[in-house]
């Protein structure tokens, strides 16, 4: 790729000397992702649970966990400079709030 001059002094991790997730951490995360996905699909096929009020929140929480561990470990936001955390969570909050308000406006979330 183009040889960009304004790069950090250290080519591999930038100037931040951070702790790096280990090889085994990556595999563990993969295992957890697979497990949670398995559970998600499993509960989908339990008719009593799928019809209950707990279904949607449970699924949302499980996906949120998957989302979080991919972001924190694979995209190593947990280990990186705080700036990247800010660059990601800001838009995420605005996106989330916008989605919630839109769902409310279209009658899918009943308030009050």
């Amino acid at each position: 790729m183009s040889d960009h001059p304004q790069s950090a002094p250290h080519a591999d991790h930038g100037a931040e000397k951070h702790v790096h997730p280990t090889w085994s951490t990556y595999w563990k995360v993969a295992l957890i992702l697979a497990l949670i996905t398995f559970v998600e699909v499993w509960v989908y096929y339990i008719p009593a649970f799928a019809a209950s009020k707990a279904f949607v929140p449970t699924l949302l929480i499980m996906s949120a966990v998957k989302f979080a561990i991919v972001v924190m470990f694979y995209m190593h936001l947990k280990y990186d400079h705080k700036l990247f955390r800010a660059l990601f969570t800001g838009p995420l909050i605005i996106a989330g709030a916008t989605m919630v308000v839109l769902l409310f406006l279209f009658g899918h979330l009943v308030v009050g």
Partner: protein
Amino acid sequence: MATAAAVGHGHPPTTTGLDHRKVAIWAFIGSECMLFTSLISTYLAYKGRSITGPFPHEVCNPPQCATTLQPILNIPVTSVSTFVLLMSSLFMVMALAAVQNKGKPGWAGTGRFARLQESSRFWLMATAIAGTAFLGFQAFEFTSFVHEGLTIRKNLFGSSFFTLTGFHGAHVTVGVLWLLTLFAIDMRRGLGPKDSLIVDISALYWHFVDVVWIAIFTLVYLIK
């Protein structure tokens, strides 16, 4: 006034010590959050509002449909494709580790597969193949839906579903091309620690595309 860094030689170091391209890719990922939020919000807003079938999770009976149509989403198949895409993120992380640790033999352990595990080419290709497999599943799903009567113009579900998953698939496609490019560069001149940044950036893009799918799988496929 003091003269600071780099009088006449090269460039001043960056203010944060971080590479420009890494800052830029995170800003880009921020914008992609809003892009997919708009698509997902529309899908959710229009859930249950299609006037005619096929429907994602419900049966469509006459007179709403010409003939009785079964719910069209195929959870088992999509679970497999979801799993494949998740594993592709693992492969991507392995690829990045391989690039970062090239020239440090033994970093991946000393098992029978150590050499394979140390190979960035192996992992890059594995990621690309997993991504392509995912796209294959998507293609299969799209064609079978069309076969069953769901086109992009059939109803609200078709419009919002195909647009949302189509945009995601397009992002995966770009990612696969990106990975194949990296693979080609690796074949040509080899990728080493000094290339960690560009591989890192492609990894960030790839993981984000995976993360979007995590959201889509739950919100579209699992929640009725």
